[in-house]
Protein backbone atom coordinates (compact mmCIF):
# COMPACT_ATOMS: atom_id res chain seq x y z
CA UNK A 1 0.00 0.00 0.00
CA UNK A 2 1.28 3.47 -0.94
CA UNK A 3 2.56 5.65 1.88
CA UNK A 4 0.08 8.38 2.82
CA UNK A 5 1.29 11.97 2.38
CA UNK A 6 1.76 13.65 5.74
CA UNK A 7 0.46 17.08 6.79
CA UNK A 8 3.77 18.87 6.12
CA UNK A 9 3.78 17.56 2.57
CA UNK A 10 0.16 18.64 2.03
CA UNK A 11 0.68 22.10 3.58
CA UNK A 12 3.60 22.55 1.18
CA UNK A 13 1.98 21.41 -2.06
CA UNK A 14 -1.78 21.99 -1.81
CA UNK A 15 -1.51 25.83 -1.83
CA UNK A 16 0.74 25.65 -4.92
CA UNK A 17 -1.66 23.25 -6.63
CA UNK A 18 -4.64 25.44 -5.74
CA UNK A 19 -2.99 28.53 -7.18
CA UNK A 20 -2.38 26.74 -10.49
CA UNK A 21 -5.90 25.28 -10.41
CA UNK A 22 -7.52 28.70 -10.06
CA UNK A 23 -5.30 30.25 -12.74
CA UNK A 24 -6.32 27.46 -15.09
CA UNK A 25 -10.03 28.09 -14.45
CA UNK A 26 -9.55 31.85 -14.77
CA UNK A 27 -7.82 31.56 -18.12
CA UNK A 28 -10.09 28.87 -19.53
CA UNK A 29 -12.80 30.93 -21.21
CA UNK A 30 -12.02 33.22 -24.06
CA UNK A 31 -15.26 35.17 -23.83
CA UNK A 32 -17.11 36.33 -20.76
CA UNK A 33 -20.17 34.24 -20.09
CA UNK A 34 -23.44 36.11 -20.66
CA UNK A 35 -25.87 34.95 -17.99
CA UNK A 36 -29.39 34.05 -19.10
CA UNK A 37 -32.40 36.24 -18.34
CA UNK A 38 -33.67 33.60 -15.97
CA UNK A 39 -30.45 33.84 -13.99
CA UNK A 40 -30.64 37.64 -13.95
CA UNK A 41 -34.13 37.37 -12.40
CA UNK A 42 -32.82 34.94 -9.80
CA UNK A 43 -29.93 37.27 -9.07
CA UNK A 44 -32.32 40.15 -8.42
CA UNK A 45 -34.24 37.93 -5.97
CA UNK A 46 -31.02 36.87 -4.25
CA UNK A 47 -29.88 40.49 -3.93
CA UNK A 48 -33.28 41.47 -2.49
CA UNK A 49 -33.16 38.54 -0.08
CA UNK A 50 -29.65 39.45 0.99
CA UNK A 51 -30.76 43.04 1.62
CA UNK A 52 -33.78 41.86 3.65
CA UNK A 53 -31.64 39.50 5.70
CA UNK A 54 -29.14 42.24 6.44
CA UNK A 55 -31.91 44.63 7.44
CA UNK A 56 -33.48 41.93 9.62
CA UNK A 57 -30.12 41.35 11.31
CA UNK A 58 -29.84 45.05 12.06
CA UNK A 59 -33.40 45.24 13.37
CA UNK A 60 -32.86 42.22 15.63
CA UNK A 61 -29.55 43.66 16.88
CA UNK A 62 -31.15 47.02 17.69
CA UNK A 63 -34.16 45.32 19.34
CA UNK A 64 -31.86 43.18 21.51
CA UNK A 65 -29.89 46.26 22.60
CA UNK A 66 -33.13 48.13 23.44
CA UNK A 67 -34.49 45.15 25.41
CA UNK A 68 -31.24 44.63 27.31
CA UNK A 69 -31.13 48.35 28.19
CA UNK A 70 -34.78 48.29 29.29
CA UNK A 71 -34.43 45.17 31.45
CA UNK A 72 -31.14 46.32 32.95
CA UNK A 73 -32.83 49.60 33.92
CA UNK A 74 -35.84 47.81 35.38
CA UNK A 75 -33.81 45.28 37.30
CA UNK A 76 -31.59 47.92 38.87
CA UNK A 77 -34.53 49.94 40.23
CA UNK A 78 -36.46 48.09 42.90
CA UNK A 79 -39.67 50.04 42.35
CA UNK A 80 -39.60 49.33 38.64
CA UNK A 81 -38.81 45.69 39.31
CA UNK A 82 -41.76 45.40 41.68
CA UNK A 83 -44.02 47.16 39.19
CA UNK A 84 -42.90 44.85 36.44
CA UNK A 85 -43.39 41.60 38.25
CA UNK A 86 -45.78 42.66 41.06
CA UNK A 87 -43.79 40.37 43.33
CA UNK A 88 -40.39 40.55 44.91
CA UNK A 89 -38.81 37.51 46.40
CA UNK A 90 -35.96 38.01 48.82
CA UNK A 91 -34.03 35.08 50.12
CA UNK A 92 -32.36 35.67 53.46
CA UNK A 93 -30.24 33.34 55.48
CA UNK A 94 -33.13 32.07 57.53
CA UNK A 95 -36.28 33.13 55.70
CA UNK A 96 -37.82 33.88 52.34
CA UNK A 97 -39.85 37.04 51.96
CA UNK A 98 -42.46 37.77 49.28
CA UNK A 99 -43.73 41.29 48.75
CA UNK A 100 -46.76 42.01 46.58
CA UNK A 101 -47.37 45.45 45.18
CA UNK A 102 -51.03 46.25 44.58
CA UNK A 103 -50.39 49.80 43.47
CA UNK A 104 -51.82 51.36 46.65
CA UNK A 105 -50.33 54.74 47.60
CA UNK A 106 -49.88 56.46 50.94
CA UNK A 107 -52.92 58.71 50.46
CA UNK A 108 -55.25 55.94 49.40
CA UNK A 109 -57.58 54.44 51.89
CA UNK A 110 -56.14 51.04 52.58
CA UNK A 111 -58.11 47.91 52.64
CA UNK A 112 -56.30 44.85 53.79
CA UNK A 113 -57.03 41.76 51.82
CA UNK A 114 -54.95 38.86 52.85
CA UNK A 115 -53.74 36.89 49.91
CA UNK A 116 -53.22 33.30 50.79
CA UNK A 117 -50.77 31.17 48.85
CA UNK A 118 -52.12 28.43 46.58
CA UNK A 119 -49.37 26.11 47.69
CA UNK A 120 -47.62 25.53 51.00
CA UNK A 121 -44.79 23.09 51.62
CA UNK A 122 -45.70 20.01 53.63
CA UNK A 123 -46.09 20.64 57.34
CA UNK A 124 -46.54 24.41 57.14
CA UNK A 125 -49.57 25.89 58.83
CA UNK A 126 -50.89 29.35 59.62
CA UNK A 127 -49.07 30.59 62.70
CA UNK A 128 -50.68 34.00 62.99
CA UNK A 129 -52.97 36.29 61.01
CA UNK A 130 -52.89 40.04 61.41
CA UNK A 131 -55.53 41.41 59.09
CA UNK A 132 -54.96 45.05 60.04
CA UNK A 133 -51.28 44.73 59.11
CA UNK A 134 -52.01 42.44 56.22
CA UNK A 135 -49.75 39.72 57.47
CA UNK A 136 -50.02 35.97 57.55
CA UNK A 137 -47.26 33.93 59.07
CA UNK A 138 -46.76 30.29 58.30
CA UNK A 139 -44.49 28.01 60.28
CA UNK A 140 -43.62 24.42 60.76
CA UNK A 141 -42.96 24.46 64.46
CA UNK A 142 -44.03 27.15 66.94
CA UNK A 143 -41.00 26.50 69.15
CA UNK A 144 -38.67 27.78 66.46
CA UNK A 145 -39.97 31.35 66.71
CA UNK A 146 -37.23 33.45 68.21
CA UNK A 147 -38.07 37.14 68.02
CA UNK A 148 -40.81 39.27 66.58
CA UNK A 149 -40.33 42.88 65.69
CA UNK A 150 -42.68 45.31 63.93
CA UNK A 151 -41.64 48.67 62.55
CA UNK A 152 -43.39 51.08 60.17
CA UNK A 153 -44.09 49.02 57.09
CA UNK A 154 -41.73 46.21 57.74
CA UNK A 155 -42.35 43.07 59.69
CA UNK A 156 -39.42 40.94 60.60
CA UNK A 157 -40.02 37.59 62.17
CA UNK A 158 -37.04 35.48 62.78
CA UNK A 159 -37.62 31.84 62.09
CA UNK A 160 -35.07 29.13 61.89
CA UNK A 161 -35.13 27.68 58.37
CA UNK A 162 -38.75 28.57 57.98
CA UNK A 163 -40.65 30.67 55.52
CA UNK A 164 -42.63 33.79 55.94
CA UNK A 165 -45.20 34.98 53.50
CA UNK A 166 -46.12 38.61 53.75
CA UNK A 167 -48.62 40.90 52.04
CA UNK A 168 -48.72 44.68 52.02
CA UNK A 169 -51.82 46.40 50.77
Amino acid at each position, binding site marked *: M*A*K*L*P*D*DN*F*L*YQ*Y*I*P*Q*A*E*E*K*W*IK*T*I*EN*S*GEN*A*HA*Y*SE*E*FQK*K*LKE*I*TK*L*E*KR*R*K*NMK*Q*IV*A*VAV*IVLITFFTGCMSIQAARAKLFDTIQRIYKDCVEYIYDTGATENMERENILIEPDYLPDGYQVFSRNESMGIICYRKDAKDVDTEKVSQNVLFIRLYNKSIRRTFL
Partner: protein
Amino acid sequence: MLIYLAAIDSQEEKSKFEEIYKEYNQIMYRAAYGILKEKYQAEDAVSRSLFKIIDNLDKIEEIRCKKTQAFIVTITENTALDCYRKNKREKTQNIDELQVYSEYSKLFEQEENDVIAAINCLPINYSIILRLRYSQGYSDEEIANMLEITRENVRTRVKRAKRKLAKILEERGVEV
Protein backbone atom coordinates in the same frame (compact mmCIF):
# COMPACT_ATOMS: atom_id res chain seq x y z
CA MET B 1 -27.45 56.62 16.74
CA LEU B 2 -27.95 52.85 16.70
CA ILE B 3 -30.23 53.06 13.69
CA TYR B 4 -27.68 55.24 11.93
CA LEU B 5 -24.91 52.74 12.64
CA ALA B 6 -27.16 49.91 11.50
CA ALA B 7 -27.87 51.70 8.23
CA ILE B 8 -24.16 52.25 7.52
CA ASP B 9 -23.38 48.63 8.28
CA SER B 10 -26.19 47.43 6.04
CA GLN B 11 -24.96 49.53 3.12
CA GLU B 12 -21.43 48.19 3.56
CA GLU B 13 -22.63 44.60 3.67
CA LYS B 14 -24.84 45.10 0.63
CA SER B 15 -22.02 46.47 -1.46
CA LYS B 16 -19.76 43.67 -0.23
CA PHE B 17 -22.07 41.04 -1.70
CA GLU B 18 -22.54 42.96 -4.94
CA GLU B 19 -18.80 43.49 -5.30
CA ILE B 20 -18.13 39.82 -4.71
CA TYR B 21 -20.61 38.93 -7.43
CA LYS B 22 -19.15 41.51 -9.83
CA GLU B 23 -15.61 40.32 -9.17
CA TYR B 24 -16.14 36.57 -9.26
CA ASN B 25 -19.25 35.73 -11.30
CA GLN B 26 -17.20 34.63 -14.32
CA ILE B 27 -14.84 32.33 -12.45
CA MET B 28 -17.81 30.94 -10.53
CA TYR B 29 -19.55 30.05 -13.78
CA ARG B 30 -16.43 28.41 -15.18
CA ALA B 31 -15.81 26.43 -11.99
CA ALA B 32 -19.41 25.17 -12.02
CA TYR B 33 -19.36 24.47 -15.75
CA GLY B 34 -16.17 22.44 -15.35
CA ILE B 35 -18.14 19.95 -13.26
CA LEU B 36 -21.64 20.13 -14.73
CA LYS B 37 -20.72 20.76 -18.41
CA GLU B 38 -24.12 22.32 -19.11
CA LYS B 39 -24.90 26.05 -19.23
CA TYR B 40 -28.19 26.20 -17.33
CA GLN B 41 -27.11 23.73 -14.69
CA ALA B 42 -23.93 25.73 -14.17
CA GLU B 43 -25.95 28.93 -13.79
CA ASP B 44 -28.19 27.18 -11.29
CA ALA B 45 -25.10 26.11 -9.31
CA VAL B 46 -23.84 29.70 -9.36
CA SER B 47 -27.14 31.03 -7.99
CA ARG B 48 -27.14 28.39 -5.25
CA SER B 49 -23.54 29.24 -4.43
CA LEU B 50 -24.50 32.89 -4.00
CA PHE B 51 -26.87 31.88 -1.19
CA LYS B 52 -24.00 30.04 0.49
CA ILE B 53 -21.72 33.04 0.05
CA ILE B 54 -24.35 35.23 1.76
CA ASP B 55 -24.32 32.79 4.68
CA ASN B 56 -20.52 33.02 4.85
CA LEU B 57 -20.07 36.76 4.22
CA ASP B 58 -18.49 37.19 7.63
CA LYS B 59 -15.64 34.86 6.57
CA ILE B 60 -14.72 37.20 3.73
CA GLU B 61 -12.54 40.02 4.99
CA GLU B 62 -10.99 41.30 1.80
CA ILE B 63 -12.83 40.99 -1.50
CA ARG B 64 -9.96 41.11 -3.98
CA CYS B 65 -7.44 38.61 -2.67
CA LYS B 66 -6.32 35.08 -3.45
CA LYS B 67 -7.87 33.67 -0.30
CA THR B 68 -11.35 35.00 -1.12
CA GLN B 69 -11.05 33.88 -4.73
CA ALA B 70 -10.04 30.38 -3.65
CA PHE B 71 -12.87 30.25 -1.11
CA ILE B 72 -15.49 31.30 -3.68
CA VAL B 73 -14.24 28.82 -6.28
CA THR B 74 -14.29 26.03 -3.70
CA ILE B 75 -17.83 26.88 -2.53
CA THR B 76 -19.02 26.97 -6.15
CA GLU B 77 -17.39 23.65 -6.98
CA ASN B 78 -18.93 22.02 -3.95
CA THR B 79 -22.38 23.36 -4.89
CA ALA B 80 -21.89 22.17 -8.47
CA LEU B 81 -20.99 18.75 -7.11
CA ASP B 82 -24.24 18.68 -5.09
CA CYS B 83 -26.18 19.66 -8.23
CA TYR B 84 -24.38 16.92 -10.17
CA ARG B 85 -25.42 14.29 -7.63
CA LYS B 86 -29.03 15.51 -7.64
CA ASN B 87 -29.17 15.58 -11.42
CA LYS B 88 -27.69 12.11 -11.70
CA ARG B 89 -29.99 10.86 -8.95
CA GLU B 90 -26.94 9.72 -7.07
CA LYS B 91 -28.28 10.96 -3.78
CA THR B 92 -28.00 7.53 -2.26
CA GLN B 93 -24.40 7.10 -3.33
CA ASN B 94 -21.89 8.06 -0.71
CA ILE B 95 -20.24 11.30 -1.80
CA ASP B 96 -16.93 10.09 -0.37
CA GLU B 97 -16.91 7.32 -2.95
CA LEU B 98 -18.10 9.53 -5.79
CA GLN B 99 -15.54 9.91 -8.57
CA VAL B 100 -16.47 13.20 -10.24
CA TYR B 101 -13.80 15.15 -12.04
CA SER B 102 -13.75 18.72 -13.17
CA GLU B 103 -12.87 19.08 -16.85
CA TYR B 104 -9.91 21.20 -15.76
CA SER B 105 -8.28 18.08 -14.28
CA LYS B 106 -7.45 16.90 -17.80
CA LEU B 107 -5.32 20.00 -18.33
CA PHE B 108 -3.01 18.86 -15.53
CA GLU B 109 -2.16 15.48 -17.01
CA GLN B 110 0.82 17.07 -18.78
CA GLU B 111 1.83 19.24 -15.81
CA GLU B 112 5.60 19.19 -15.20
CA ASN B 113 5.37 19.03 -11.43
CA ASP B 114 4.11 15.52 -10.65
CA VAL B 115 2.87 16.42 -7.16
CA ILE B 116 0.80 19.36 -8.40
CA ALA B 117 -0.46 17.23 -11.28
CA ALA B 118 -1.48 14.47 -8.85
CA ILE B 119 -3.33 16.90 -6.56
CA ASN B 120 -5.19 18.57 -9.42
CA CYS B 121 -6.10 15.23 -10.97
CA LEU B 122 -7.97 14.14 -7.82
CA PRO B 123 -11.76 13.71 -7.95
CA ILE B 124 -13.27 17.10 -7.19
CA ASN B 125 -14.79 16.13 -3.80
CA TYR B 126 -11.32 15.12 -2.54
CA SER B 127 -9.65 18.16 -4.07
CA ILE B 128 -12.20 20.50 -2.37
CA ILE B 129 -11.66 19.09 1.11
CA LEU B 130 -7.85 19.16 0.83
CA ARG B 131 -7.84 22.76 -0.42
CA LEU B 132 -10.15 23.93 2.35
CA ARG B 133 -7.97 22.32 5.00
CA TYR B 134 -4.39 22.58 3.74
CA SER B 135 -4.48 25.74 1.65
CA GLN B 136 -7.30 27.90 3.02
CA GLY B 137 -6.62 26.77 6.61
CA TYR B 138 -10.16 26.07 7.81
CA SER B 139 -10.75 23.80 10.80
CA ASP B 140 -12.73 20.57 10.49
CA GLU B 141 -15.67 22.27 12.19
CA GLU B 142 -15.64 25.21 9.77
CA ILE B 143 -15.37 22.86 6.80
CA ALA B 144 -18.24 20.76 8.17
CA ASN B 145 -20.42 23.88 8.46
CA MET B 146 -19.50 25.11 5.00
CA LEU B 147 -20.11 21.79 3.27
CA GLU B 148 -23.08 20.92 5.49
CA ILE B 149 -21.61 17.61 6.56
CA THR B 150 -20.50 16.24 9.91
CA ARG B 151 -16.97 16.63 11.31
CA GLU B 152 -16.67 12.86 11.13
CA ASN B 153 -17.44 13.05 7.39
CA VAL B 154 -14.77 15.70 6.99
CA ARG B 155 -12.17 13.46 8.62
CA THR B 156 -13.27 10.44 6.57
CA ARG B 157 -13.13 12.41 3.35
CA VAL B 158 -9.65 13.77 4.16
CA LYS B 159 -8.44 10.25 4.86
CA ARG B 160 -9.84 8.95 1.58
CA ALA B 161 -8.44 11.93 -0.31
CA LYS B 162 -4.99 11.20 1.11
CA ARG B 163 -5.27 7.54 0.10
CA LYS B 164 -6.30 8.47 -3.42
CA LEU B 165 -3.50 11.03 -3.67
CA ALA B 166 -0.97 8.48 -2.42
CA LYS B 167 -2.13 6.07 -5.13
CA ILE B 168 -1.81 8.69 -7.91
CA LEU B 169 1.60 9.74 -6.62
CA GLU B 170 2.74 6.11 -6.56
CA GLU B 171 1.53 5.63 -10.14
CA ARG B 172 3.53 8.69 -11.14
CA GLY B 173 6.56 7.34 -9.31
CA VAL B 174 6.64 10.11 -6.71
CA GLU B 175 7.88 9.26 -3.23
CA VAL B 176 6.39 11.11 -0.29
